[in-house]
């Protein structure tokens, strides 16, 4: 049941549109109901070969020897692929945006780091023949000790899961073993709190379980190219990954996809494309590599588990004054996309609330399990679970109704967020109010009067003085706990605003539509603002009865924004994660 509240935010909206906003039929629906939608596997090829991989039976083991002689002689077998056949047998997905180090082989050579890791690929005339030959491959392993728990993995002396990251964590900014968020002084604020709520949460791993399993078909095409029918969630992402691993120019590959039987994040990893293309290159025939359901369930890369610790400091009146978070993403054996999830998670904290003191340490840890990857709500779903259960506990601790507690602490337009940018376009309060009304959940008159449009900014827009630290230097676990090294003064910002969106396309008759991207730069706090640490906003709190009369004064007139230097050349993520120096 879907209904609209067109009355809310009506002034910000032009509803006089022709097609946008209409529940028109999906363009792809006729294909779906007739079975004609062309999924990757719905293509006929003469001489189609089938690829299956031999997977590691161990969580962690050194490979002593691989013997494929019996498999090579098995009926129908056309070709066997090993690590040495892969032109560039080490990759990390986000290397396409220059983020992180190559750490994962397409076919394991010297050791396996998770149960199910591909070691050998077999290409045969039928799937049954490939499966039969798979059973004939002999791999000798020396089993190694394994580690499954994220916090155990980070202890000195834990088994090394991934040689590229020998300390079992992703390395942020070439400097730290975790991603940091520091805003205000949480320790001082905890000391002022009336209630401390502290707990641990565990998000389970989740399988994407799309009804269509991962797979691809690659075939030699005219002009010495290869056509690839793919279920990738990013067509050029997969094309680029395959081109890199196979050392091919991108224009030798012709990827066709776009009609995908569910993904939910589980089809970002290019699990099959490099090997099916390599198979087509080696055999000169079309090669199909499709995961069966058991492989999809066990080795198709899940949503990673996350362990999250949250500590809140809450005043008697319900205001949260401090929130500290420590979180561990379980990447499994290789990085894939977990490193980016931690970045997104860090920026999301402390959730949709204005909290004057926030600190977070987000780790990505390697363990001997199937590498995890993106899934619906990547970087957010788990921490939202933890935050919102924690909010329920916070409300209980201070004796408030959970909805009132959220409205009291909700972020509003012009509030400063913990990553030091001003909140705009907020609407949490209205969502709470609308649901309360629908569900018959009583709210106080004050809570019903609140608005995302008012009551924000002012003291809530200040960047507090912030102690910063050098804890968690790479390779030095003894530095994980340590004192602050300095205190950044109030209002301090270190990152220039470079975020004006770019939208190309020549002018046309439609005058600047409502959709023209604008990014409001943060106005630095005038120097006259008190630089000292303030335990909490001097102005009245989110003000349970602020009405129009108590709206905050307009912000000080901003100075014209200084022109930002234009960035030249390709944008490199290395400036963010790799070789950045200051």
């Amino acid at each position, binding site marked *: 049941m879907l209904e609209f509240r067109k009355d809310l*935010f009506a002034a910000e909206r032009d509803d006089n549109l022709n097609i946008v906003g209409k529940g028109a039929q999906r363009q792809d629906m006729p294909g779906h109901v007739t079975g004609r939608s062309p999924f990757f596997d719905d293509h006929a090829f003469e001489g189609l070969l089938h690829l299956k991989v031999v997977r590691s039976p161990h969580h962690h083991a050194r490979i002593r020897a691989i013997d494929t002689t019996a498999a090579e002689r098995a009926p129908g077998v056309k070709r066997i692929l090993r690590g040495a056949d892969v032109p560039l047998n080490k990759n990390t997905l986000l290397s396409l945006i220059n983020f992180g180090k190559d750490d994962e082989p397409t076919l394991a050579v010297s050791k396996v780091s998770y149960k199910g890791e591909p070691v050998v690929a077999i290409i045969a005339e039928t799937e049954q023949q490939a499966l039969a030959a798979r059973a004939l491959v002999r791999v000798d392993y020396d089993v190694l000790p394994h580690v499954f728990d994220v916090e155990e993995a980070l202890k000195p002396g834990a088994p090394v899961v991934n040689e590229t990251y020998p300390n079992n964590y992703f390395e942020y900014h070439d400097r730290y073993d975790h991603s940091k968020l520091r805003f205000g002084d949480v320790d001082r604020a905890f000391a002022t709190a009336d209630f401390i709520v502290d707990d641990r949460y565990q998000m389970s791993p989740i399988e994407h379980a799309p009804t269509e399993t991962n797979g691809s078909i690659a075939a030699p095409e005219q002009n010495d190219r290869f056509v690839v029918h793919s279920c990738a969630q990013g067509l050029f992402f997969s094309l680029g990954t395959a081109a890199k691993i196979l050392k091919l120019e991108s224009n030798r590959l012709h990827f066709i996809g776009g009609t995908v039987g569910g993904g939910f994040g589980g089809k970002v990893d290019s699990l099959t494309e490099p090997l099916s293309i390599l198979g087509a290159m080696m055999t000169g025939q079309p090669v199909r590599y499709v995961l069966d359901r058991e492989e999809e369930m066990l080795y198709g890369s899940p949503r990673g588990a996350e362990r999250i610790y949250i500590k809140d400091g809450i005043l008697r009146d319900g205001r949260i004054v401090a929130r500290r978070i420590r979180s561990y993403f379980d990447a499994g054996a290789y990085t894939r996309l977990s490193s980016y999830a931690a970045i*997104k998670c860090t920026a999301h904290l402390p959730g*949709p609330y204005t909290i004057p003191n926030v600190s977070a340490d987000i780790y990505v840890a390697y363990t001997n399990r199937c590498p995890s990857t993106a899934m619906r709500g990547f970087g957010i779903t788990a921490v939202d679970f933890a935050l919102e*259960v924690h909010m329920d506990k916070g409300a209980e601790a201070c004796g408030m109704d959970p909805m009132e507690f959220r409205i009291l602490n909700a972020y509003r337009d012009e509030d400063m967020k913990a990553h*030091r940018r001003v909140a705009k*376009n907020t609407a949490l309060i209205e969502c709470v109010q609308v649901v309360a009304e629908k*569900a018959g959940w009583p709210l106080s008159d004050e809570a019903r009067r609140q608005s995302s449009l008012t009551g924000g900014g002012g003291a809530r827009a200040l960047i507090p003085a912030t102690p910063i630290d050098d804890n968690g230097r790479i390779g030095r676990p003894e530095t994980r706990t340590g004192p602050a090294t300095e205190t950044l003064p109030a209002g301090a910002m270190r990152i220039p605003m470079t975020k004006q969106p770019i939208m190309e396309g020549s002018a046309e008759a439609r005058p600047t539509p409502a959709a023209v991207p*604008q*990014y409001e730069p943060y106005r630095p706090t005038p120097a006259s603002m008190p630089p000292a640490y303030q335990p909490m906003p001097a102005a009245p709190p989110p003000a349970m009865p602020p009405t129009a009369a108590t709206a905050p004064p307009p912000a000080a007139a901003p100075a014209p924004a200084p022109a930002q230097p234009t960035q030249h050349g390709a944008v490199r993520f290395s400036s963010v994660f790799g070789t950045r120096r200051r």
Partner: protein
Amino acid sequence: MARHRGRGMASVNYPIGMNLGGDPSQALIHSNPDGKFTVALSAIDLGQGMKQVTRQVAAETLGVPMEDVYVDTADSDTGPHDMGSFASRGTHRMGNAVIAAAREARGVLLEAAAEELEVNAGDLVTDGRGNIHVKGAPSRSITVKATAQAAQFKQGKTIAGRGIFLIPLSTVDPQTGELNPNTAFAHACLVADVEVDDETGEVTVLKMASAYELGRAINPKMVEQQLVGGAWMGISHALYETPEPYYPDPSHGPRDFNEYLMPGPGDTAPYSVTILERPAPDGPFGGKGPGEMCANPVLPAIANAVYNAVGVRVNDLPITPEKVLRGIKANGGARPQPRRGGGG
């Protein structure tokens, strides 16, 4: 032994797209000689509705009927680069790229029409039904079809457009986490009513109600699809799913749909959704993107409802009967919490 009802809520926001930026999307649009348009993309439709969303955005911007636009995706030989369908970035990033391309194509279309009508292109408007006319003078008009034919065969003009949308990459301060993050945030609040059986530990979701603020519901039917399907997935994540039921012990992993538990068609709960639209300043017609966030509030709302019903906090997902029963036992029995309004 009894069944206890409980009610819980959660409120969330969601950052749209890759939050550091640096994730471009491109679009190309061209017209047949009779004014029918093709949008060529490399974006992926994995059920979320990319083809139809971009079709509506393109038709709206071009000012032509939706039926006059088809979206062709994804072929790397014809569709230009796009980062991909993930992080709820499709509607926002690709929608903007399509707007940019459609604006360029529309510019040529109006120039061509202006030449035919011998007026200034700036004085022309489209009626969305296949006609172009002088503002305030509908009789001085030409069809899109006639315009396209004239452009193609008489004027030698290409009615086409190219578009890209890019939020430039942000740097991150390693010590504070300061960055220029996502530019659009969607919002939601959800109430879940559950029933917990204190003998079996089983949790049944009785009904749910939510409000989602999504900037602009570009296609309300598809928003409903996403939110209803996502809520189902939320129930599934909260109560059933995991490949490692005793994580971090990896044993007992399921191998198929008999062992990997999800709610079936008989396990759904009545669900009522209200849509709020506060347009994103940089979204396509204000759109944000509902795809990723629609399960997020369900998980904690159910966990909070379970606590409300029997006084057990399950901090480790999923909330299995085993965990609920262990919690009830540790508490010395079910401890129902105060009823929430309307939750009886």
